[in-house]
């Protein structure tokens, strides 16, 4: 059996005195896309931050067999590529430069971009279809374009684990589909992808498994194909109706509980 990418036991984390995640236990398997779903404020982003080692936590959290709180930050940079929820970029770097920052964890202190780094940047840009944006300042790009640049940065980082917090929230449906397809490709290449998305249908279209969070606790988990209306209703306090598309995909749609 494969070694799990993440293994957490009694994991609690939060901000200052406020605890958000309460004693979560579970595993996330490599070579899969795992969708984190749940209503606003359920702790999805907090779990992403805790998994990345960006928040203090109690309990046990292991990444590829290593204790996260004992792994140096630089090493974590090589192991985890992250796209944060807020895609604010304050400095007017070109998209090429920003994607190139993904190579930083692989470069020595005095290092500079090598030919291999340049190849990785161009390859990442090509996978996201943003070659035409490469030499434009990111501050001049639209929100969706900027998200594609930041996703390309995580791809260029070439880390075995990708933690993506609403990476497609500002993208148009076509670009979001392209991004989710890319996530599936990354998983097939052996990487572990954990993605938070409010568009359940888009997330489930690429996800192999899901973790449903509510009030900082895991209320359900399993294979994406096994997600049920009962779980969705328990998550969002709203009934969901499944529709089957002409291609055979299940599409979930919330309905007003009063109708």
């Amino acid at each position, binding site marked *: 059996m494969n070694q799990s990418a993440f293994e957490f036991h009694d994991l609690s984390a939060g901000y200052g005195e406020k605890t958000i995640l309460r004693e979560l236990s579970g595993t996330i398997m490599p070579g899969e896309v795992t969708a984190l779903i749940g209503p606003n404020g359920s702790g999805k982003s907090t779990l992403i931050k805790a998994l990345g080692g960006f928040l203090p936590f109690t309990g046990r959290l292991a990444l590829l067999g290593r204790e996260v709180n004992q792994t140096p930050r*630089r090493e974590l940079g090589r192991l985890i590529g992250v796209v944060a929820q807020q895609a604010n970029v*304050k400095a007017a*770097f070109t998209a090429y430069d*920003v994607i190139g920052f993904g190579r930083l964890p692989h*470069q020595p202190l*005095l290092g500079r971009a090598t030919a291999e780094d340049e190849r990785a940047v161009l390859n990442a840009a090509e996978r996201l279809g943003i*070659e035409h944006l*490469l030499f434009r*300042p990111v501050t001049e790009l639209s929100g969706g374009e900027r998200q594609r640049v930041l996703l390309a940065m995580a791809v260029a980082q070439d880390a075995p684990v990708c933690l993506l917090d609403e990476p497609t929230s500002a993208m148009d449906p076509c670009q979001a589909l392209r991004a989710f397809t890319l996530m599936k490709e990354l998983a097939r290449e052996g990487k572990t992808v954990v993605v938070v998305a409010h568009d359940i249908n888009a997330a489930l279209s690429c996800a192999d498994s899901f973790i449903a969070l509510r009030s900082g606790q895991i209320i359900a988990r399993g294979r994406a194909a096994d997600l049920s209306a009962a779980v969705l209703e328990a998550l969002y306090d709203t009934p969901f109706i499944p529709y089957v598309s002409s291609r055979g995909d299940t599409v979930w749609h919330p309905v007003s509980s009063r109708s």
Partner: protein
Amino acid sequence: MNPPSPAEGLERFLFCRRRRYAALGSVLCALLLLVMLWRIAQGEWDIPLSRVFHLLSPLLSEAEAKTPEALVVRAVRLPRVFAAMGTGGLLAVSGAVLQGLLANQLAEPYTLGIASGAAFGGAIGFFFTAFAVTPMAFAGALLSLALVSLIARRSGGGASHLVLAGVIANAVLSAGVTLLKAVADDKLGAIVLWLMGSLSGASPQGAISVWLGAAAVLIPAWLYGRSLDAVSLGEGQGELLGIDEKKLRFRLLCACSLAVALAVSRFGIIGFVGLVVPHILRSLIGPSHRPLLIFCFLTGALLLAGADGAAQRLGELPVGVITALAGGPFFCWILVKRK
């Protein structure tokens, strides 16, 4: 004709970028050389350039080195122009580092209360003896930074907290300086003149100390340049790329504080260089810190050496007045033009 492939586009982009660096670097170096020659040859007593070169020669005889002309060039003008260049370079580099480190384009040595701390400490020094000004200014800057860091850490520890704590410290320390001026009696003149900033009377030791200060901030900041790039994207962005932001911030803040304290304690408050220079250069060459820091040093050196020349020409005005009077409107013009 087919559009260029991404690899060809990249090659052309990098070539253009290198060419822009080379052009700007050449212009800055040439201007700096001209300003240096102007500052050494011109003054109350104009000395021909050929004579200046002769007097600057290391092979100058001992007798000739003691002539008034040689003393003016070697012991007065040369230290002054080097002090101006070192101070200008140091302030501009510190401004660029602080702006990158805090991902805040309003950051500069004054935002964090470093310079106000030095001013407060130095002003207290005047109440003891003139020799106490430099060490007291130095202590004031370090104490101010320690306080700002403590407040920031207690309130959350982020870059925005540092800037907020700095603004508060700045206001309190400025009020403290005003209070000291109000009770200064016969020392008021000396305190005011020192606070306005002046490079007249710069000694070789003073010049060397600000160059060392500039090196203390430029070298580590250049080495961490790529990390600084990532951190300047926004708070927390560096952490995502495996950079220990707190450690980086601590190291570079300490280096900046030491350097700025050194400059303020020697030559008083000289504003706007640290704010304006990085802004101008970012719009010319982009925000990448390794080239930005080098060009900031050259431009800051050029700007302050020129401003000091203007200050001297206008009857030995404090150079801080010139940089603020010229820098303020120029900065506003940049902001409006960019909009």
